[in-house]
C-alpha cells in the first residue's frame, strides 16, 4: 500500500495532477500538436526519472523545451526540478525573463522548499526510529545471551556443587568411616582367637567412635548444604500459598528430574501469571496451577476464570491476546532454554509454559 505521509507521494500526485490538467487543456482547447508531443515527451522523461533517479538533471532539458515551446507545462517541470533539488532551474527565469515563468518558478520553489524540509524531517524521524529499533534488537540479543549464559552458569554451579559435596564427604566423613572399617576388620580377626577377645574391645569401641564421628560429620555436611530458601516444587507451592486468593496447586509426574534453571523459569512464569491475575482479573473465582512433568518436558499451566473482554488491557480489539512486557520477557526466557510460552483465551484464561528437560539442547 501507499505510504500516505511521504513527500514522494505528494510529488507523484502533483505530477499526475499536472499532466491531467495538461491533458484536459489538450482536450478542451484543442491546442497545437507541439503541446501534445511535449506533454508526451515529459511523461516519458518523468517516468524515466522515476525509474532511474540518477537522471534527475534531465528535468532541466524538459524545462528548456517547455520554456521554448509550451510554457504551460513549466509548472510541472519546475515542480519536478524543485523536488529533485535542481535549484539552477532559476536560470530559466533569468534566460527567458517572463513574468509567468518567474511566477511558476517561485511557486515551484516554495513547494520544493516545503517538500525538502518535510523530507528532511521525515528522514530524521526514520533514522531515529531505525536507531531505536537497532538498539532494541541489540538489547534483545544481549538479553538472550545473558539468559543462555545463566543456563550455563546454572549447569556449572550444579557440577561444582557436586564436586564440593564429594570433597566434603571424602575429606571429613570419608576418613572416619574408612578408619572405622579398618578397625572393625582388625577386630573381627582378633575375635577369632578366644584368648585375645578382651584386647579387641578397645578396637571395637574406637571403630564405633569413629563411625559416630563420621555420622555426625555427614549430618553437619548435609545441614550445611541444605538451602535456606525452598527450591523446585516447594518454591512454587510456597508462591501459591502466599497468594491472597486460594490457588488449587497440583503436581503430576516425577519432578526430581527437572533441572534447577528450569525451575527458575517456571517460578518466574508462575509469579508473573499470578501478578496478572491480581492486576487484570481480580474478579477471578477459581485459580488453578498444574505442573506436569514427563521424561522430556515440564509443563506449567496457570488458569483462571476471570477472562477479559475485548478492549481490556492485554486484549486486542478482536479479542486476541496482546501480551505485555512481562509475558514477552518470559517468552524470551522460555525460548532461551528451548521452551515456549502460550496464552490461551478460551472460556478460561490460560498461560502455558512448556520447557524441555532431560538433555534437550537449550537456547534459541
Amino acid at each position: 500500500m501507499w505510504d500516505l505521509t511521504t513527500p514522494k507521494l505528494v510529488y507523484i500526485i502533483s505530477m499526475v495532477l499536472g499532466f491531467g490538467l495538461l491533458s484536459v487543456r489538450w482536450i478542451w482547447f484543442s491546442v497545437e500538436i507541439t503541446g501534445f508531443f511535449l506533454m508526451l515527451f515529459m511523461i516519458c522523461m518523468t517516468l524515466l526519472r522515476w525509474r532511474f533517479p540518477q537522471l534527475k538533471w534531465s528535468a532541466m532539458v524538459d524545462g528548456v523545451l517547455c520554456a521554448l515551446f509550451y510554457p504551460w507545462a513549466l509548472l510541472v517541470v519546475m515542480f519536478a526540478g524543485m523536488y529533485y533539488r535542481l535549484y539552477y532551474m532559476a536560470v530559466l527565469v533569468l534566460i527567458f525573463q517572463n513574468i509567468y515563468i518567474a511566477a511558476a518558478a517561485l511557486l515551484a520553489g516554495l513547494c520544493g522548499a516545503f517538500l525538502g524540509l518535510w523530507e528532511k524531517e521525515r528522514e530524521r524521524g526514520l533514522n531515529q526510529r531505525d536507531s531505536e529499533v537497532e538498539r532494541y534488537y541489540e538489547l534483545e540479543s544481549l538479553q538472550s545471551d545473558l539468559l543462555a549464559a545463566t543456563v550455563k552458569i546454572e549447569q556449572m554451579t550444579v557440577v561444582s556443587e557436586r564436586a564440593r559435596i564429594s570433597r566434603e564427604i571424602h575429606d571429613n566423613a570419608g576418613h572416619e568411616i574408612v578408619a572405622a572399617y579398618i578397625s572393625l576388620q582388625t577386630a573381627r580377626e582378633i575375635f577369632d582367637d578366644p584368648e585375645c577377645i578382651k584386647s579387641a574391645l578397645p578396637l571395637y569401641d574406637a571403630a564405633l567412635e569413629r563411625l559416630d564421628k563420621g555420622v555426625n560429620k555427614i549430618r553437619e555436611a548435609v545441614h550445611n548444604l541444605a538451602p535456606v530458601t525452598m527450591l523446585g516444587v516447594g518454591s512454587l507451592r510456597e508462591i501459591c500459598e502466599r497468594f491472597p486468593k486460594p490457588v488449587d496447586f497440583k503436581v503430576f509426574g516425577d519432578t526430581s528430574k527437572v533441572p534447577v534453571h528450569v525451575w527458575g523459569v517456571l517460578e518466574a512464569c508462575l509469579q508473573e501469571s499470578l501478578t496478572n491475575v491480581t492486576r487484570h482479573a481480580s474478579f477471578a473465582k477459581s485459580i488453578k496451577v498444574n505442573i506436569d512433568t514427563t521424561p522430556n518436558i515440564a509443563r506449567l499451566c496457570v488458569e483462571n476464570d476471570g477472562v477479559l473482554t475485548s478492549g481490556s488491557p492485554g486484549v486486542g480489539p478482536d479479542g486476541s491476546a496482546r501480551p505485555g512486557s512481562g509475558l514477552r520477557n518470559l517468552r524470551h526466557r522460555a525460548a532461551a532454554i528451548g521452551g515456549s510460552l502460550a496464552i490461551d483465551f478460551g472460556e478460561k484464561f490460560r498461560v502455558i509454559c512448556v520447557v524441555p528437560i532431560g538433555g534437550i539442547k537449550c537456547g534459541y
Partner: protein
Amino acid sequence: MTIFKFALRRGLFSPVAIILNGVIPAALIVMMRLNDDGDYRQGIFLIAMAVMFGGFFMAKGVQNDRMEGVLLRILCGPVTTRTYLWQNLLGAAVPMVGLTALISAIGHVVLNWETTFTLGIFLTYTFLAMSSVGLSFVWSSLFKSKEASSGAFGAVMTLISALSGFMIPLHLMPDFLFYTGALFPAHWASRAMQIMLDYGEFSQMFWLSMLAMFLFTVAFILFGAKRRLI
C-alpha cells in the same frame, strides 16, 4: 535467454494469440480480396484492432506468471526483474514484428498493395503492436487479481476501440472525443492508416503518428518496469 524462449513459445502457442494474430487477419485479408468494389479501408482498421488485442495477449504471460505465483519462483533464481521483463518484452515483440511483416507481405501479394503503402501499414501495425505490448506490461504491474483485470480490460479496450477511430472514422468524431482519443496510441495508428489510405505517402503527420506511438510505448514500458511485480 531461457525466459525469452519460454515467453516466445508461450506467446506463439497461446490459442487467443493465434486467433487474434493469425486467423482473424488472414480471414480479413481473404474477405478483402473477395470484396468486389476493392474498398479494403474497414478491413485495414479491423486488422489493426486484431493486432492491438493480439499484442496485448502476447505479453499477458507476465500477468499470468504474477497471478499464478510462477514469477515468485522464477525470481528466486539468479534472475533480476529487469532480465525477466526485457526477455518477456522481446518474446512478445519479435513474433509481433514477424506477424505484422507477414500481414503486410500477404496484403502486398494478395491485395496488390503498393510498396509505400505496404511499408506504411507495416510500420503502423508494428508500432501499434509494440504499444499494445507496453500496455500489457502496465496491465501486469497494476492488477493482482484476475477478476479485476478482466473487468477493467473489457472497459478500457472498449473505450480505446471506440475513441481510436477503428470503429468510427476520426473525421466524424466531435472535437472532444477526437482529442480524448489522442491520449491513446490506437488513435495515432488510426491517423497513420488514414493518411496511408488517403494519400499513400509518408507525410509529416504520418511520422508524427509513429513518434506518438513510440513515445506511448516508451512510457508504458517504463511504467510497467518500475512497478513492483511481486
